[in-house]
């Protein structure tokens, strides 16, 4: 299964990003072959609808599941339409590698409803921009 994990950076040692739409990178891991690929989230700086744009990007990459912290309502609707499974609850204190191990052990549950509210837009977040 091609699993997409929201990430702070490009490789397996990067930290998990807890937001979906405005996550800087997506690391896509094939859970059988462990083949990885990272893509930049070009929807990250959208004025509106970053979650929907991000869902479009990972759907185009052929992701079958998503692991992240929280998914908002619009992104969730888009992901469901593309038949992408949503796993929430990943922590930014874990690296992609650790999150992947936890995922394989069944640590994360599949979400049936979006746990996050609508996104806060391109807001200022602690000088990271």
């Amino acid at each position: 299964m091609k699993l997409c994990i929201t990430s702070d950076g490009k490789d397996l040692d990067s930290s998990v990003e807890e937001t979906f739409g405005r996550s800087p990178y997506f690391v896509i891991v094939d859970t059988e072959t462990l083949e990885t690929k990272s893509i930049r989230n070009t929807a990250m700086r959208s004025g509106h609808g970053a979650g929907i744009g991000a869902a479009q990007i990972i759907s185009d990459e052929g992701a079958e599941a998503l692991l992240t912290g929280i998914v908002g309502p619009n992104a969730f609707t888009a992901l469901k339409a593309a038949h992408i499974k949503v796993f929430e609850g990943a922590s930014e204190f874990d690296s992609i590698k650790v999150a992947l191990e936890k995922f394989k052990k069944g640590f994360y549950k599949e979400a049936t409803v979006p746990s996050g509210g609508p996104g806060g837009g391109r807001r200022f977040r602690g000088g990271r921009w």
Partner: protein
Amino acid sequence: MVDAGLKGRILAALHRKPLDIPIIAITGGKGGVGKSTISVNIAAALSEMGYRVALTDADVDAPDDHIMLGITLEKPLDVTVNVPTIDAGKCTGCRRCVDVCRRNALFQPGDGVPILIGDCNGCEACMLDCPEDAVGKERRRVGETYMSERDRLLLFTGRLMPGAEESSMVVNALRNRLHGGCRLCRN
């Protein structure tokens, strides 16, 4: 800084307008500083002096000039925007509508037909860009304009629907109604 050329053009534009119907604009970025109070009082004073006045309340998020004047809003007209509906029969899945949407409101699952998920503001770019003419229009009500009359005072009011973001659409509709329906402007 306004450059000299632009300043000249603004002045020229001002002088092209007839000055027999003065327009007084009252605005300000801060809330609660007295914009409505001043507007309503100028309008009331002028109409009491015998002038015909068209007062326009373009504060569409919270119009309250009619409350201060004790006027009931009359003659409502709907303000609508067009949101896309995609004809699955005509759509070839080229995704131009999804790419052109600056609000990422459209999403295309796999090779399927795009669906409207996000907040469409009715810009109609998707409808213009579709090469197959597959993006149809569906009306969505975003606000109302009103025209109320008391003696020599004509009050134009715009009101945005709760939760709607299209304040500029309501303001534009209000301006068009003012220019089209106001007897003062047409003389």
